[in-house]
C-alpha cells in the first residue's frame, strides 16, 4: 500500500481552529492531545449540532404525528443514510445504530453466533484484538461449546497470514478481525483475509472491528467483502454513546433481535409479538438520537475535509514522529509493522510507562499508558504496558516536538 498523497499542503492550523478544546492549557502548558485512539476531539460544527438539536429539534422519533417528532425522525434517519454512504453499504437498512463498537460486536455475538454455533465450531480471532473483540466471543464459546483459534503475530506486530490460512478449516464459522490495532498501529489486510475465508466457505461470517480505522482511511464494506463491520462515533469526531454496526441484509433478516422493547416491534400482545423490519428490529427503545445526528454531522465534516487529505497529513506526521522518537535514547517503538497508521506505542528503558505518562501530563501532553484493553498483546510481547501516542489530523509537528522534548525531561528525572 503506498502512502496517500494530498495536494495542496494540508492546512492543519486552519482545521485546528475548529476544535475549541485544543486551545486550553494544562499545568500552564498548551494541551498536546495525543490520545486520539482513546477518543477524538469534536469540531465546533458537531458541538453546535448537538446544541441545536436540544434547543430546537428534540423530540422522540418514530412515534409522533407532530412536526417536531417528524423533524427529529428525519434527522435521525438522515444520519443513518450518512453512515451508509460513509461505509459504502448497499442499503440503509444494513446500518444499525448501537452504543459503540463494543455493543455492535456483542450484538453479532449474541444474536448471530449464539444461535448458530455448536460445540466444536471454531471462531478465529487475532492475537492483537481489543478486549471488545475477544470477550464477546469467549462468552459465545461458553454458551455454545465453540472454541477460539488465535492468529499469532510477529514481534514487529504483523499477522502471520500463513498461520491464518492454516487455522481456516471446515470447522471455522466466524472470523473476527481488527482493522487497525489500537495498541500497535498495525493495519491488517481485511479484504484479503475476508476473501480467503469466503473462498474456503462462503458461509463463514467475517466481522471487522473498524473502531480505529474509520477516522484514518476510507472504508468500503462491499469492497472489503465483510459480513459485519463495526465502528464508534466518538473516535471519528462524533459524540460518545453512538456507534454503527453494518451487517448484510440477508444475515440481519435471519437474526433474532438483540434486545426487546419498543420500536423494534411491529405489534405486541401478550400472546404474540411480531418484530419490526430492518434495521429497527435491532434498535430497541429510544436511541441516542442526538448522538446519531451528531455522528452524521461528524461524517459530513470528515467528508468536507476529505479523508484522503487527512490520511496524507497523518502519514507525514507519523513518519516525522517515528523518526524523531527513534532518536530518543533508550526509547523503543512497540509495533513496527510495514503498514501502520496513527498509533505509536513505545517503551523507555528502565522507566515505567505510568511514570512517563505522569511526567508528560506535567508538560501538558496527553498520552495513554497501560495495556490499552489489549492484555494479550502485552503478554505476547512480555511487557506490562506501553506509552501510546495516537495521532489525528489536527496534530502538528510542533506537538511532536513537544512530546520529544518532554520525553527527554522524563529521562532527565530518572537519570
Amino acid at each position, binding site marked *: 500500500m503506498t502512502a496517500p498523497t494530498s495536494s495542496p499542503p494540508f492546512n492543519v492550523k486552519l482545521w485546528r481552529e475548529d476544535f475549541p478544546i485544543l486551545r486550553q492549557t494544562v499545568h500552564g502548558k498548551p494541551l498536546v492531545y495525543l490520545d486520539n485512539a482513546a477518543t477524538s476531539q469534536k469540531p465546533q460544527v458537531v458541538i453546535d449540532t448537538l446544541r441545536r438539536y436540544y434547543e430546537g429539534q428534540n423530540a422522540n422519533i418514530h412515534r409522533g404525528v407532530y412536526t417536531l417528532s417528524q423533524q427529529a425522525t428525519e434527522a435521525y434517519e438522515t444520519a443513518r443514510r450518512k453512515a451508509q454512504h460513509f461505509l459504502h453499504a448497499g442499503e440503509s437498512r444494513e446500518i444499525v445504530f448501537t452504543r459503540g463498537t463494543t455493543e455492535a460486536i456483542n450484538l453479532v455475538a449474541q444474536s448471530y453466533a449464539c444461535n448458530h454455533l455448536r460445540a466444536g465450531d471454531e471462531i478465529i480471532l487475532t492475537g492483537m484484538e481489543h478486549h471488545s473483540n475477544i470477550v464477546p466471543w469467549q462468552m459465545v464459546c461458553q454458551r455454545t461449546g465453540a472454541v477460539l483459534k488465535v492468529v499469532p503475530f510477529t514481534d514487529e506486530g504483523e499477522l502471520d497470514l500463513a498461520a491464518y490460512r492454516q487455522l481456516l478449516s471446515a470447522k471455522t464459522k466466524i472470523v473476527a478481525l481488527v482493522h487497525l490495532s489500537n495498541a500497535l498501529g498495525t493495519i491488517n489486510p481485511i479484504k484479503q483475509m475476508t476473501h480467503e475465508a469466503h473462498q474456503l466457505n462462503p458461509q463463514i461470517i467475517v466481522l471487522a472491528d473498524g473502531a480505529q480505522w474509520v477516522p484514518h482511511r476510507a472504508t468500503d464494506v462491499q469492497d472489503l467483502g465483510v459480513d459485519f463491520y463495526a465502528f464508534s462515533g466518538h473516535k471519528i469526531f462524533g459524540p460518545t454513546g453512538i456507534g454503527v454496526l453494518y451487517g448484510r441484509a440477508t444475515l440481519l433478516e435471519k437474526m433474532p433481535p438483540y434486545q426487546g422493547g419498543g420500536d423494534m416491534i411491529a405489534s405486541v400482545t401478550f400472546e404474540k409479538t411480531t418484530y419490526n423490519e430492518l434495521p429497527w428490529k435491532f434498535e430497541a427503545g429510544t436511541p441516542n438520537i442526538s448522538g446519531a445526528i451528531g455522528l452524521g454531522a461528524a461524517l459530513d465534516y470528515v467528508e468536507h475535509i476529505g479523508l484522503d487529505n487527512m490520511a496524507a497529513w497523518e502519514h507525514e506526521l507519523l513518519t516525522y514522529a517515528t523518526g524523531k522518537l527513534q532518536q530518543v535514547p533508550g526509547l523503543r517503538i512497540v509495533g513496527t509493522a510495514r503498514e501502520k497508521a496513527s498509533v505509536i506505542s513505545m517503551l523507555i528503558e528502565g522507566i515505567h510507562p*505510568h511514570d512517563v505518562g505522569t511526567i508528560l501530563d*506535567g508538560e501538558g501532553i496527553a498520552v495513554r499508558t497501560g495495556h490499552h484493553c489489549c492484555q494479550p498483546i502485552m503478554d505476547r510481547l512480555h511487557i506490562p504496558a506501553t506509552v501510546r501516542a495516537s495521532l489525528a489530523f489536527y496534530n502538528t509537528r510542533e506537538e511532536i516536538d513537544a512530546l520529544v522534548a518532554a520525553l527527554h525531561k522524563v529521562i532527565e528525572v530518572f537519570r
Partner: protein
Amino acid sequence: MSELRDLYQEVILDHYKRPRNRVVLQDPTCSADGHNRLCGDQIHISAKVHDGRIEEVTFQGSGCAIATASASLMTEALKGRTVEEAQALFQRFHDVVTGPPHQAAPDDPELGKLAVLAGVREFPVRVKCATLAWHTFLAALKNEHGNVSTE
C-alpha cells in the same frame, strides 16, 4: 512543575533505582500477591512474623517508580514493628496519600521516610500505586490467598 518535583523527588527515585529488600525471603511465615492489572504493577510480599512482631519483610515484582519505591520504603519501615504498630502506620500512611490535593499533608513524625510519598495526593490516579504494597502486606498478614488489587 513543583508537584511533579514533589512526587518524583530524590528519596523516591533512589528507592526506585535501588530498591531495598527486593529479595526472595527464605522461610516466610506469610506472603501474598498484589496486582494492579490495569496499570501493570505486580508485587509479591513475603514476611516473617513471630509472636506478633515483624522480623522481616521483602518484596519482589515490577512496577512503576511509585509502586516500587513505596514497597521498598514499606519494607524498611515495618522491620521490627509489631503487627498493631504496622496497621496503625498503614492508616497514617493511607491518610497522607489519600488526603485532599492542594492541601499540604500535616506533619506526622511517626511516618518517617514514608512521608516522602505525600506528594502522591496531588495525583489521585497514582494513589493505588503507592498503596499496593501495603494492601498486599495486610493481605499477607491475614494469609489471604488470591490476588490483591488496589484498583
